[in-house]
């Protein structure tokens, strides 16, 4: 999952990026409205954390321009203004959720998980595909009830696939959603990660569709 954080306070921005990266997200960050708007328009994010009081371009305007341009990623609005009129304005501009400052990072994480899950059509925080289960709250992956240890990159890949079970996902899409913009993007590394993931899972749920990409499917019932 790849996120964008648009927050003009340097300290808060750093804290958010750090906490989100630790939680297994690939995170880009912007310090003003202009940069934020550009990134949101050009990069495929799975969710955005957007502060409203931004220099250069106001947060609400940034959000509106994204929605006008047809960008539908979930946006979590972050603001110190907690009057209901401000909230109505942000939701009408296209926000999906709203957190008022000051906040605990845990709250942001919980809201983000819910947003990403909802955006991919899942109702529960547990993502299940056959014997594989991903608990998005704790960031654990279980196969047949047994936890397996994944690196953060592997978890990101697993989580993205689990959010889109049954859909063919191209390598480019994976690259775009798994790495932040500063990462050296080489689609070959995806193959390496997929290989490692298959080995760690021990069961055949990630299938390769030649020329198109990968698809996560529950293993076919043993035909006998």
């Amino acid at each position, binding site marked *: 999952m790849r996120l964008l954080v648009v927050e003009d306070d340097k300290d808060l921005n750093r804290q958010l990026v750090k906490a989100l990266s630790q939680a297994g997200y690939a995170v880009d960050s912007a310090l003003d409205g202009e940069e934020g708007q550009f990134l949101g328009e050009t990069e495929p994010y799975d969710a955005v954390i957007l502060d409203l009081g931004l220099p250069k371009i106001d947060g609400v305007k940034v959000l509106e321009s994204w929605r006008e341009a047809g960008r539908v990623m979930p946006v979590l609005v972050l603001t110190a203004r907690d009057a*209901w009129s401000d909230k109505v304005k942000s939701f009408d501009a296209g926000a999906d959720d*709203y957190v008022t400052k*000051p906040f605990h990072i845990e709250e942001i994480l919980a809201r983000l998980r819910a947003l990403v899950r909802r955006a991919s059509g899942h109702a529960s925080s547990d993502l299940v595909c056959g014997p594989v289960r991903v608990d998005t709250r704790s960031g654990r992956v279980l196969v047949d009830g047994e936890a397996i240890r994944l690196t953060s990159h592997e978890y990101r890949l697993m989580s993205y696939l689990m959010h889109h079970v049954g859909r063919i996902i191209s390598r480019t899409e994976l690259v775009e959603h798994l790495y932040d913009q500063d990462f050296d993007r080489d689609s070959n590394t995806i193959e390496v990660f997929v290989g490692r993931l298959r080995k760690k899972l021990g069961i055949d749920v990630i299938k390769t569709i030649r020329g198109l990409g990968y698809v996560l499917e529950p293993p076919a019932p043993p035909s006998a």
Partner: protein
Amino acid sequence: MMSRFSLSRLSIGSRLFISAILCSLIILFGAGLVLSTIYRRASERAFDERLQVYVQSVAANLASKNVSNVFDPYGLGDPRFTLPLSGWYWQIRTEGLAKPEVTSSISLFGGRLPKLETLNVPAHDGTAREGYIIGPDERRLRLVERAIEFPDGSRFLVQIAGNADEIELTIQSFGKALWTSFGLLALALGVTTIFQVRFGLLPLSRLSNEISAIRRGSSDHVSGKFPDDISPVADEINLLLDVNRDILARARTQVGNLAHALKTPLSVLINEVSDEDTPIANKVREQTSLMRDQVNWHLDRARAAARAGVIGVATDIAPAVAGLERTFLKIYTDKNLTIESILAPDLKFRGEKQDLEEMLGNLVDNACKWARRQVVIKASAFTGANDHPFVVFDVSDDGPGLPPEKRTEVIKRGERLDETVPGTGLGLSIVADLAKLYGGELTLDSAENGGLRALLRLPAV
């Protein structure tokens, strides 16, 4: 009724009208009095002159010693002197003798005319007097007398009396005509005054209509052209309204800026220590959460205070409710709530949109928090005391509700500032405070299905 009457509350129109009418009545009455006095004098003088003619002819007769002529009952050529008690008399008194000799007209019928001199009537020209007396027939008479002294030393007092009713009759008919025409004049003046007052005060009543439209909230400026003498007032009112709005907007922006300025660093502090478990980290956590609550609590109060005394603002209720509905459906997506709103058409709240959204937002948020499946928002218009229109919002949920003894506590929490621990759950007390600022009220009740029902009464347009 009279005890309520106060001169200082009298309308300008009535003041102008009453003072104009009073002045014209006094002037007309005075003029009438002067005119009738002058007319009376003139009538008396004319009558006296008629009588003087007789005095002169008697004097001429006396001078020519034409005594027989003098004593001729028909000598003065007027038959009224011969008719008994006709009211027309003459009398000649020979003076200077030991016993005065008196000759009089037949009409006097043996009676005597009194001397004006003895009635203390002052003489003019030394010898002539005029005055009223009561005659032998008890009628009022006008009497003219003159003392005549001939060179031979003989002195006479010639008296001629005429019926005073004649004078009174002419004066009366004059008076009737005078007061009738003055009455008509007063009426005409009154009508003119009414017209003048109405016409003259037209711009003022237009101004007052404009201002009450602003107060009702159906207009936000004094518009239209006014005459030079009151257009400064209209301009000042507009300026005042602008300044008022400006101050309000600035106060809000400042509160917002303060919120932003304080809350972002607070977020940084809170998150900086979130992973640490040292004594200092715990202290920072404890203190920052205290600071956060205090900042929130005081900002809410400051916002509310910045709102007091707004005039000339009205907010459409339907769009505000629709906006909140959209918002809450998004916020509570996971609860799968249905929010139903039943609004009377064309409702308008007399106040700021932000305030309406703040009050309703808190109520609906609270309802959504506790609701199991459904939140219902109703709004309807009522007319209260003094014909003031107001709107009542009824927000109910199907949640667990609140026991009656807790309801007042929840509403009152914000009032006792010092005993209060600022924190969560202040939403309803903020609604109650804001509603009070607008002269409204928040009451809590239980809904039919056991949930909480909040009734919010606010001024409407």
